[in-house]
Each structure stands twice: as structure tokens, then as C-alpha cells.
């Protein structure tokens, strides 16, 4: 959220930088009313970010944590809190033998992981009549 004039200046500067990086063709599209304009912000990977792929240990840790939660919401929160990127979710999905589709976004992968773990357990307990709500 923009709170100060300084923030606003920073935003405008970044927009100007983004415009500068556009090709001539893209710039002419911006002038063409036939095109709509959409601004998309993508998180930049910092040099200190954990390596892509996450270590085997952390995959196991996340799977252990998923095994201990009892609702889909808890599982979603757990993955949300971990703020795992698509690249970091992929080894978890692979460990669970979940098919990964290239066009899957991180959110879709999170949903698949939740369904393959907590979701499967809930379904099984519900049908077997052993689930306590």
C-alpha cells in the first residue's frame, strides 16, 4: 500500500523502468485502443533465496507436517505460510507421485498436494466412517 509521497515516486520510477524495457512494437500496442493494459507484478528471486528445488530434508519436513494436520484449510495455511514457489512445490509433488503439468501455477500445485495428502485421508476416513469432526 502506498503511504508516502516517496512510495509513489518509487512506484512511478519502476513503471518508467518497465516502460523503458518494452520493445517498439509493445509500445505501439500501448497506444492502440484495441489492446487492454494489464499490470502484473512478479516476485523477484533474491540472491539469498533458498535454492530452487528445496532440499530433500525440507520436503520430508513439509510432508511430515502435512501428515499431522487434519483439515484442508490447515494444510493450505501450512503451505501458504511456507510461501513456497512453484519450483519449490514441484519436488514435494514429485515425492507424492502427483503428475505435474507445465501450465500448473503454484496455487494449483498446492491444491493438488493438499488433495493427495490431507484430502485423501479425509475422503478415506469419511467413507470408512472413522472421521471425527
Amino acid at each position: 500500500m502506498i503511504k508516502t509521497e516517496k512510495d509513489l515516486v518509487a512506484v512511478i520510477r519502476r513503471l518508467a523502468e518497465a516502460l523503458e524495457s518494452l520493445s517498439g512494437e509493445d509500445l505501439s500496442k500501448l497506444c492502440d485502443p484495441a489492446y487492454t493494459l494489464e499490470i502484473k507484478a512478479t516476485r523477484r528471486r533474491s540472491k539469498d533465496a533458498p535454492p530452487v528445488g528445496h532440499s530433500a530434508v525440507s520436503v520430508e519436513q513439509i510432508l511430515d507436517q502435512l501428515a499431522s494436520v487434519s483439515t484442508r484449510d490447515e494444510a493450505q495455511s501450512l503451505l501458504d505460510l511456507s510461501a513456497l514457489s512453484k519450483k519449490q512445490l514441484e519436488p514435494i509433488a514429485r515425492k507424492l507421485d502427483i503428475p505435474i503439468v507445465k501450465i500448473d501455477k503454484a496455487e494449483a500445485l498446492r491444491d493438488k498436494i493438499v488433495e493427495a495428502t490431507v484430502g485423501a485421508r479425509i475422503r478415506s476416513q469419511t467413507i470408512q466412517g472413522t472421521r471425527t469432526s
Partner: protein
Amino acid sequence: MDIVAVINYKGGVGKTTVTSNVAAELAFRGKKVLLIDTDAQASLTFSFITPDKWDKDYKDSMTIKSWFDAISQGSEPPPLADFVITPAAANSVVKLHGGRIDLICSHLGLINVDLELATLLGGANLNQSKKNYIKVHGKLRAAVAHLAATSDYDLVLIDCPPNFNIVTKNAILASEKILIPAKPDFLSTLGIDYLHRSVKELVNDFNEYAELDKNTEPVDPQILGVVFTMIQITSGKPIAAQRQFISQTKRLGVNTFTEYFRENKTIFADAPQNLRPVVLNRYSPGTHSDVVKEIEKFVTEFSAAL
């Protein structure tokens, strides 16, 4: 003698293919195997004898329906041995190895037997109802126990329909072990859970009521595990879409067999028409031969689990 029910609550999972091939491979290894077809679709029956022969020679008095009919009519059923046939085509192969496959056929009218058996349930009071429950549901168990004591079978395989009617309950209660064929897909894996629940409830009911009858022993059929069927192989392993459900089933703590039945329409589609399970056929090295080898490996794993 081992008594194994083959069942999944979900239909179309390859139950008959598993049953017929396990029986054939074991007979090929010199075992004496009895198949009891309790599915009104009679798919197992028609995997070993032609529908016209069934119609001419067995339909009227040599099927499991005739055996259950005796109960419905209030009389003591004849021994199961009276209903056993020895299918010629499959036995022409296995007898060379000292084995035998016998069969008690099913009947397309078996579906109506449940309604007739249901009329025998109930009673003037709760005790009477419970005794009738034992009487109706424990009949096949008693008959199979008698057969075990008077025959040379190594294994009885009971092919069950994908429901939990009185005939199916008879089959489950008659069994010591349960084999669950399942396709690794969403709905088939739900069928495994349905089955677990139904078996647990059936055993609890039967054992509770059995306490009233000093002649009835409690039952405790054990689930041997799940054998995955119709597996599509790519690069030497099941495709990803199926692997996820295999892994999921294992994670839920269900015992699963390592070996599986591969999908192969070319050889499985017309096998029943030839009255010989594919495992008894010889194929040139290649995919078909691999399918047979996989079945052989499963049977070895299955035998060890008994």
C-alpha cells in the same frame, strides 16, 4: 486349504481377470483350485465355459443359484461338491502339470436370490432375528468348511459381485482372506474404503449375533491387500496419472501388492472367448510375454501372502 474372496465395491476393475488368471497359474503350478462365481453377471463362468454349454448342461441345476435356491425354499442345501464342474479347455493345459481348476458356475438369475433370502430374515423378537441372520448369512461358510474337510483343494477363490447383498456377505463370511483388485483411479480407490467399512460392519454384526449360537464360531476375514489392475506402462513404470493413486493408497496404510496386472486389450479382450486365461498362453518375447510374466510374479507374491 485357503479360502479367498476377490471383491471390490467398484465394478469393472478387472476382478474376473485377476481371479481366473490366479487360478490358472496356480493350477499350472500343480495346485487344485476351486472357483466359486457368485457374481450374477457370470463373467468368471463364461471365462471357462461357453454360454451355450452353460445353458444346455448347467443352468437348471448346476449353479450356485441352485444351491442358494435350496436355502430360500427352507431346505438344507446339498453339498457344494454336487455343483462342481471341471472346465475342459483350461484343464487340458493345467492337468499336464498335475493341477486342476474346478468351477461352481454362477447364474444370471442370482440377482433374484437375494430377495428370496431376505424373506428369511426377521423374526418374532430380536433374538430370533439375530439367529435368522446367522442362519442366512453363514450358510456358504458352513458349506465351504465341509468342502475343505472332504476335498483335495489347495485354494478356493470366490469371485464376488460389486455389491454387498446377502450372497456377497455369504461369500465374505466364508472366506479367510480378501483380495481387492482395483484400478488406480479416483473412484476405484474410494471403492477400497467402502469395502473396508462394509467388511468391518459385517464382521461385527455376525460375531455379535454368533455369540447367541454355540455352534457358530466368530469370523475374522483378513484383507490380504490391493492388487492394481489395468496398469498402463510407459518407460517401464505405471503412467504418472496412475502412480499417484497407487502411492496415495499406500500412504493411507492399505497393504498393496508390488506386482500388478497390466492393461493390454489385445490379449485380454478375447481371452474369455478362448476359455483359457492369458497366463496359460505362450507368447513370443515382447509385450504379451511381459504381461504373462507379470501375472506369474503376482501369483508368486500372492501365494507368499496366503
